């Protein structure tokens, strides 16, 4: 079952949206007006007007009640998967927007980097939530840690603190190491290297974290 968003002839989708948002239940005057405006879609508009009328008959009171009773910050698995689709689609859109000549100069990256869009403030906030410093977050951003050493618990924690889908974060860590996040800021004297990856414990031990911070990370 893979219904996709209606492509249809050019203008059909816009015509159906126009009909749908004009009134709660379409009447003959509205439908006539829409068919005059989009004469090539008379049949589709009529069918959709009938479908709207039937749908509107049931009302929205049950939706309103269910919405009021739901925790808005408790995403269901379906919502999480929809967020994942959003991120994946965003990634493919971003990739397709890169000019071919730019593409050829860049090191290919197989996954969307969820750190790349963080502002400086967000970057620091994330570090604070994870209880680490910016050196360690830089290693996460630049994929300097061998993904084989990253525990599921740690990756889950990163996803939660980043407020990003888990599979996006896992894909980021598993992707090829790049020359660093373009457009990001680098506090160190040199830019991140493309050298070999560290194990998780090496990364934790060599980031200038306190003993307590190291212990907390290694326990995840």
């Amino acid at each position, binding site marked *: *079952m*893979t*219904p*996709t*968003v209606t492509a249809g002839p050019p203008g059909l*989708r*816009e015509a*159906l*949206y*126009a*009909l*749908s*948002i004009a009134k709660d*239940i*379409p009447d*003959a005057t509205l*439908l006539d007006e829409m*068919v005059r405006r*989009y004469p090539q879609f008379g049949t589709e508009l009529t*069918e*959709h*007007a*009938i*479908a*709207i*009328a*039937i749908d509107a*008959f*049931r009302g*929205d*009171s*049950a*939706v309103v009640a*269910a919405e*009021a*009773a*739901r925790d*808005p*910050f408790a*995403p*269901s698995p*379906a*919502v*999480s998967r*929809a*967020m994942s*689709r*959003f*991120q994946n*689609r*965003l990634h493919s*859109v971003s990739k*397709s*927007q890169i000019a071919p000549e730019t593409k050829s100069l860049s090191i290919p990256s197989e996954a969307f980097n969820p750190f790349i*869009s*963080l502002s400086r403030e*967000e970057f620091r*906030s994330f570090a604070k939530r994870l209880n680490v410093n910016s050196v360690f977050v830089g290693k996460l951003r630049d994929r300097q840690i061998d993904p084989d050493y990253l525990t599921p618990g740690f990756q889950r924690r990163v996803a939660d603190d*980043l*407020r990003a889908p888990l599979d996006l974060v896992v894909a980021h860590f598993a992707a090829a190491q790049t020359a660093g996040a373009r457009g990001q800021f680098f506090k160190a004297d040199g830019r991140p290297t493309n050298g070999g990856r560290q194990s998780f414990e090496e990364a934790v031990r060599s980031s200038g974290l306190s003993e307590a911070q190291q212990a907390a990370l290694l326990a995840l």
Partner: protein
Amino acid sequence: MIQSLNKAGDADPLIRPKTIEDQISATLRLSISNLKARLSVTDRADPEFVQSETLVHLVRHGRRTSNQTLISLVLPVLLNRCETNLLVKVPDGQIPEAASLREEILGAFSELFASDGVGDAPVELDFYECKFNRAFRFFRIDMVRRETARLKPIAQTPEQDLDGEPDAYEDVFARVSETFQASATQENEVFRSELMDAIQGLPPEERDAVILVHVVGYKEESDDPDEETAATRCNCTGRTIRNRLTRAAAKLVRFKEAL
């Protein structure tokens, strides 16, 4: 200054309601923590409730400004609302694989935000900043109808020509019209639901005739060749429409005295 909408109808460009414009301006000035507090309000009647039109704008704003924090905060809340809508409107049992279809609708809707500003429909979300519930209704109905069509190809059956007296069923259709026009209340909810199920259970051509004549408000036919009627909308004769109505009324007659 709020980004204006680009989607232009044939006559006029889309314009957000004033209340939405005001709420967008106000929420754009909120800190993330204050916005989160506002998003926790789920009662639509509460003045602090953030309308879905505003949420759409905030996510699009997040995309335009690469504000992942804003997107990550707002989009799941909006998708939660959409999922709630789908659970009510596309319930299990109504069509096969309802759960999969709900998830597909939700996923496809989320992708609109990723494709915003690019592709074949770069400003489709403009509709959602004006009338979210109606725009999402279209999105849902469109996908449900295509899935239903895929699962149940319509078998054309020859229509019987009836000589019955259509006027005999006027009471039935008066009841249908009344029920459509009355707002839903707890008292008539059961009746409405049963009548709706019965109408939806009619053969498509009978159902369409009932809706076009008794809900949308078309005449069955007209002597004026320029006048649109149920017959012209369905590309058939007035006699065919009357036959369909007669057959439908016979199936709905049990609702005549109810309500």
